[in-house]
Each structure stands twice: as C-alpha cells, then as structure tokens.
C-alpha cells in the first residue's frame, strides 16, 4: 500500500548548509495496518510525510502509494491519501460543513453521495453541533475533528497523520486515537508520525524509529524489544539515538549500523 524505497531528500539550509533531511529510508505499510514513524523533532518525519503526500519532491529513491509513484503520478497519489497535520489547518472563514464539502468536491464527489458521506461523518465524529460554525470560532479539538473529516470524506485507502495529537488536550487526543483505531478497523493503511511513545505503544502495528533522516530500526514492537534486548520503548528509543549520535560524533561520514538487516517483509534496505 505504501512502499518507500531508498527515499532521499536534500535541503540547502542557511544555517546547516546542504544537509540530508531524509537519508535513503525504506519501509512498507500494508492495508489495515498502522505504521508508526517515531522520532524526535527534526528527525525527518514531516519531510518524509510531505514527500509521500507529494507536497515535496524527493531528491532520490522511490515511493509509491497504492501503486502510484509520488513523483511522477502525484495527482493520482493525492486521490489515494488523506493528510492530517499537526496544525489543524482549516479555513477560518468557512463553516465545518462547507470545508468538508469543498474537499469532497475536489475529490470528485457530488450530490447525494457526497452529502450522504458527510452526514455519516458528522454523526460518527459528533460534529453536528458545529456544522454551521465558522472555522475561526472552533476550539482546537473541534478543528482537528473537522480536519479528520476533511481528510477522510473521500474514503481514501491511505491516511497520513503528521503529529496529529500535538497541542490537543488529553480528551481530544484520546478521541483522535480512537478514531485512528476505528479507521484501521475499516482496513485503512495508516502512517502515523509521532514523538509520543505511548501513542506508538497503543496504536502501531509496526514502527520505525527515525533520527537524523535515517531509520535506526524498524519492526513490530515485540520484534524491536527482542532485537535490542529492551522491554521498554522509551529506553530502547533513547539507547538507539544516543548510540547513533555517539557513533556520528566519532566518525561523522562513516555509515552507521544500528540495526541488523531484516529479512522480513518491509524491512530496511
């Protein structure tokens, strides 16, 4: 469903000069699976997700969504995904209903089909109270609900959540995570980027720990615990990152191996 193979993104940054934001990362996420990208800020998670959502163009490697190449078949890719970002990004001067309707239409939905889906979504996400309220008058939690409704109105097979719980209160964050789990039940392939361990533990079927643009390790949580001899995700996470940074400090340009090569499907390349 999501196939990423040796994806690379270079940037020219004023402070850091030319740097590799995403360095040959590869993974594979399947339908009915929540795939987590766990990493600190600046790890390259958002850049990866932006490349998968075709907003950014990769500098190298390939990635495909539902068989469509993100570089050469960008419009088709965008039909297959729903993207929910950290900033709730909804229009202040549109009502919740207008916003969802607009994006439904952009995805080619019309008439009864669109409105039927919207009624259903507004019921499921308990948004009927706010359907005629302008975006600017909504609370953060409500905005995030509208954002989800906007992203899934066209029933995409792939959903990308970019730190979607950032800034949400506990109750809203929990409701959002429940919604993610529900979407998995509907067979969606979900890519979930976060830096919160508990979310990964609760949601993700597979997880990749990302740091400085590289995937340090990847697999199911039990696989990771077994592979690294840890039974706590937080310890495992910090251990991997510090080992990587230490190795980098010793030999800046040398290739760093922090993981055994995986033979299982969707492993590191």
């Amino acid at each position, binding site marked *: 469903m999501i196939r990423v193979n040796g994806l690379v993104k270079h940037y020219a*940054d*004023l402070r850091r000069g030319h740097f590799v934001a995403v360095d040959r990362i590869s993974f594979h996420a399947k339908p009915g699976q929540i795939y987590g990208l766990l990493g600190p800020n600046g790890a390259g998670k958002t850049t990866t997700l932006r490349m998968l959502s075709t907003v*950014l163009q990769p500098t190298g*490697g390939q990635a495909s969504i539902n068989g469509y190449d993100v*570089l050469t078949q960008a*419009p088709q890719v965008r039909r297959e995904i729903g993207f929910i970002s950290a900033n709730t*990004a*909804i229009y202040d001067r549109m009502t919740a209903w207008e916003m969802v309707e*607009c994006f439904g239409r952009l995805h080619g939905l019309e008439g009864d089909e669109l409105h039927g889906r919207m009624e259903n979504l507004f019921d499921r996400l308990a948004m009927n109270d706010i359907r005629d309220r302008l975006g600017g008058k909504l609370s953060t939690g409500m905005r995030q609900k509208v954002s989800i409704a*906007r992203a899934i109105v066209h029933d995409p097979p792939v959903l990308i959540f970019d730190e979607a719980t950032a800034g949400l209160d506990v109750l809203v964050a929990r409701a959002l995570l429940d919604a993610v789990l529900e979407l998995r039940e509907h067979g969606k392939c979900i890519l979930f980027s976060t830096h919160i361990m508990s979310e990964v533990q609760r949601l993700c079927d597979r997880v990749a720990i990302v740091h400085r643009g590289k995937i340090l390790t990847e697999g199911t949580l039990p696989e990771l615990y077994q592979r690294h001899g840890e039974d706590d995700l937080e310890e495992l996470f910090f251990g991997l990152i510090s080992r990587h940074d230490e190795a980098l400090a010793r030999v800046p340009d040398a290739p760093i191996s922090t993981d055994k090569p995986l033979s299982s499907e969707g492993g590191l390349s």
Partner: protein
Amino acid sequence: MRWANTKLIFLREIRDQLRDRRTLFMIAVLPMLMYPLLGMVYFQIAQFLREKPTSVLVLGALNLPESPPLFENDRFSPTLFSKPQAADLLNLTFYNQGSDLWTPAPEDPLEKAREAVRTGQFDAAIWFPSNFADELDRFRLVSESGVLEVRKGEEAVGPETLPSIPRPEVIYTTSNEKSQITFSRLQRVLHSWNKAIGKRNLAAVGLAPEAALPFEIQGDDLAEAAGTRGMAIWAKLLPVMLLLWALTGAFYPAIDLCAGEKERGTLETLLCSPALRSEIVVGKLLTVMLFSMATVILNLISIGITGLFLMKQMPGIGPVPLAAVGWLLVVLVPVSALFGALCLALAAMARSSKEGQYYLMPLLLIVMPLAILPMIPSVEMNLGFSLIPITNLCLWLRSAVEGQYAVLLKYAVPVLGVTVVCCFFSIRWAVDQFNRESVLFSENERNDLGLWLRHMVRDRQPTPKVGAAFLAGALILVAMFFLGLTMPVPEGFGGLVRTVMVTQLGVIVAPILILTFLLTTRPAKTLLLNRPAWRVAWKTVPMAILLAALLHPLAFAIQALIARLYPIGPEAQALQGLIASVPSFWQLFLLAAVTPAICEELAFRGFLLSGFRHSGHKWQAIALSAIFFGMTHTIVQQSIMTMMVGLVLGYLAIQSGSLLTTIAYHMTHNGLALMTTLVTPELLARHRWFASLVDTADGGYSYQTPVVIVTTLLAIVVFGWFYRLQHGETDEEQLQGAIHHGQALGDEPLGPE
C-alpha cells in the same frame, strides 16, 4: 487542467474573501466613503482659499495718475473687477514717505517690501516707480501728437519715438500658495486698469475704445457637442487611477490568498488535495481578478456619483461619457489579469501577510513609472509605445476616454497582444512559485543577509546557485549604472578604448571572476571552459560562426525595425558616429567584437546562465540571462536587440556546453554588425553581387526580403544541428525532466556532488 476544480477553488476563495471584513472594507466601503469625503474636503479648502482676503503692500501710490483711478477709498477700484465685491479680497496697506508702517523709515523701501513678502508679513507687494504718472502722461501726449501728424498726412509715430513707461513691480513668492493667489488677483486687476488707460488714450484722440481690440475670438469646443467637455484631464487621470485601483484591488486579496494561507497552514492542505497547482493558481487568480475589477468598478461608481455633484463647481470639466466607461471596463479585464498574476506570484513568495505587504512598494516602483510615462505631453500612442506593457494600456485607456475610437481599434492588436503575453508569463511565474518548495516551505531565516552570504561561500557548489546568479547580475547592473553617471562621454578613439575596457574588464569580468572563485568549487565548469567544452569546440565553433552569419540579415532587419519603432536619440547617434570614426576596422573589431564577446560571455553565458540553470527550467534560465545581458546595454534600442541575441547565445551555451561556441557567435555577430558601417555606395557599385542582395531605398540599405527569408531558413537548419547535440543537465533539470516525462528517479540521489 479541470475547470470543475478551478471553479470550486474560485468559488471557495470568493466566499472566503467576502467574509473577510478587511477585504470588504478596502474594496467596497473605502471607495464609497473616500471620494465624497475627499471631494468635500477639497472644495472646502479651495473655497476657503478662494474666499480668504489677502494682504497687499502698495508702494508709490502717490505716483499714479488720477484717471482712470486704480484705488478708491483705500482699496482697488471696484470698477476694475467683473464682480465689484472681489475688490474686498485684496486688503491694501499703503506706504508713502512719512508713513509710520516701518520705524525708522527704511533706506530702501523696495528691499524692505521684498523682505516683508518673504517673511509672510504681506502676501504680495506692488511698487509704482516715482515718474510713473508723468511717463504715462507723456506717452499719451506723444501718441496724441503722432495721431494728429498722421491725420495731417505725416508718417506714423514709430515705437522708438514713444516714451517707455517704467514698469510697476509685483513682489510675490511661489513658495507660498497664498502669495501666488494674490499675484494672480493683482495681475487681473492691473490688466483691467491697463486696458482702462488704453481706452482713455484712444478716447483722447477720438478713437473708439474697441480700436485696440477690433475683434474677439469665438471658441468652438467640439467636446461640448460630443459630451466630452474637459476630457483631457480625465484622459490623463483616469488610466493612472484605474491602474492603481486595479493593482491595490488585486494586491490585498492576493496576499491573503497566498501568504495568508501559508501563515494559517491551509495552503499545505490544499496542495495535498487532487487539485493541480495550475488549477489552484487559476482559481486564485480569477478571485484576485474579480476583486481587482470590483475595486475599479466601485471606485468608478463612487467617483462618478461624487463627480456629478462636484462637476457643477468645475465648469471646465464634464462627466466621463458612458461609452468611455464601457471601454474602461473592457480594458479592465487584461489589466486585472496582469496585475492579478503579478500579485499572486509575489504573494506566493511571501512567508506571511506582513512580509507580503512589503512587496507592494517594489511593485509600485516598477508599475508607476510605466503608468506615468503617458502623462508626458509628447507621449502619444504609436506602434513603439503600444509594445510597452502598462504604458500601452494607459495610452489605450486615454484614447478610450478621449473618444478616439479609431486609435483604440488601430492599436488593439499590439496592446492586447503584449498584455496577453505578459499575462501568460505572469501566470507561468505564479504557477512556478507554487511549484517551488523553497518558496512554499521557506523558513524565517531566509532573509538573514549575513547567513545567506556565509551560506553562499561556505556551502559552495561546483556551479553557482540561482541566488548567486541574481547577485552577480545585480552587481553588474548597479556598477554599470554608476559607471554611466561618472564616466565622461567618450571622445575620440582613446576615449572609446578607455570606456570599453573599464566597462568590460572592470565592471563585467572582474566581479564575475571574483564571484566564480569565491562561490563555486569548479570555476572551469561554471564558465563552460572545462575539458568537454574544449573537446566539442572544433565542431561547435564553426557552426556558431555559420549561424551568426546566417542570422545576420534577420538581426539587421530587426535592428532596423527597432530603430523605426523607437527612434535613436542624439547620444546614441553620436556613439555610432564615434565608432565610424575609428581609423582601422581591425582596431574596431578588437574593441567592439572580440573584447565584449569574451568578457560578456564569461559573465552572462558563463556565471549567470550556470547559476540560473539550477532553477530546473532551461528556457527560464536562458531568458533570465538574456534579460540581464540586455539590461547592461544602456541604450534601450540596443537592449532589445541584445536580449534577442542573448536568447540565441543562451541556447547555444546549453546545447554545446562550451563558452567557446558562444564567444565565436558573439564575435561574428558583432563583427558583421560593425562591417555594415563600412558599406558605402562606392562599395556596392564595386561589388555587384553584394549589391544584388541589398535594398538601397530610404538612403540607407537593408537586405532584400528573400535574402532574409532564405538565410533564416538555413539558420533553422543549423539550430536543428545544435538541437541534436547531447548536453548535460543540472540536478534540478533532471528532476523536472523526470516529472515531465513520468520517469522515476534513478538509484543515485540527486544533490550536491
């Protein structure tokens, strides 16, 4: 592009903007309030100034004749005014010997009066010389006796025998508006008095007062019948105002729709939708256009309503005719499209609404001179001006307001053609901005100049970056500007050599070489002088020379056309004369063909083009380098031609990958252009074969049209040869090529080598 998506985005943006109180205020409320308020304030101030009495100091009032009287009861005689009460608007203060106005009495009262006006004690002063009345009387007597002699059959009295009357002096200052008003009031009253004296003199010799002015002129204003009274003022004002309204009406929505969306994070959401970038841009553009047009229309309505009331108080000006308003609305469509696309592209570059506001001033600095140019009295619509963007629209609008529909139709094709081309490129630019990651996801540090310069040097690449190319181009232009101000106009061959050397070596090559070694890691590759460039030269150089020779007749024809459209000024003609006066052709060739070919190619096809190619768009890079190349030639006519030549040179540079190719072309092109100065009637008579190729009509000579056509067709064949050459691509060009051709990227990532 799917119109359904474009329409959807357009309708969404319209709804969004209509719910924005700031936009509504700027577009609808402000114009409806502004003009009535401005009109009211203006007329109140004008009325206040008109009605306010002004003070006049009178010196030498005792020197005036008793009849006809200038003063009555310490004010000007009311009989001298068309409305007698106007005499009260000039408050007089008389200064005579023994007057207590100034104590002690000044030695030079006239000088003292000047000081009083300068310091604002009086608005104006009027001084009559001591012998004024006597000389006036003598003048009358001499005239009388002259007339009597004529009646007796003698010769008429000549002007040399009439005594010259000392002139009264009105002291005022143009630094003060009130003083100017006083001066014009005094002029009118003194003129009336002067006429009264003339009438008295005529009466004294028994002539009718009308003898001095036997007839009056009757004006027949055709505008009265056509309903275009006083249109000249509207014709100058309305186009500029319309352009300004259209620009501001487009600017603020554009900022909100691009920079505002970026700021609010909604742009990324939209970019993730299936809508194509072109659909998004066109949807937004239509919105911006609509608001731009709405601003203009509402302003026109408001100014029209206000004008209906104000016109009554301005008898010289009539209302704008409805037909002209109709034409204004027609012209409004391309104007709004052009400004809409420009504003959208600029707004896309801004990271925030605040930053977007800063871009208005540079845009105005570019637009305003072009909009104001038609206000110069000698500027009229012709083919040349019809090809200058914005200026052509202003002149076209002027024709519409003046009711000159024949002019309007005659220049419709060039004006609309140029505007459509400009719109097309502006929209392309806007779409391009929406495709640029560095623009869409730019970070706040981008504007840190120190960081940027450090980044340029520290993170040097094999070839310069786009920013470095712009920097180099800007440096050359600025240096050329200051050089133009400081360098004297060359005189003689020595002066010409000095000018060319300073320009080419000091201003063009030196900064380019410094930047090349400072900002790149592979200077030879940057300047297209690396090993592959030398390897291909054996075949590309002769082909370039051949191409330049084949394109020479076309270039010559274009040059002649440009000179016809935009006649060359005396300075440029002097320079041409100077070139013609160089003693030896080979010296001239070395100076004006070889030197610029090497120096300018190093700069424009070497450094600049290499940098611009990192934009990922080959033709955009070629066009940018050609524009900078053209702009460095300070004579406008030359700039147009060099821009065209720059396009050819840029293409050759990319296809051949060798600067030697472009140097060869440049040298041949310039050399042939110089050789044309050697063509004389004697030469044509000596070489019959050459004479058969040229047309010697109109005193000069040009190539026969078949020659131009045949050589151009042959040149196309040579272009085909260059087209088939294998050439290298930058990473950015490879990326754009991969997207365009739908090919996935290779395993080896693109990026810094």
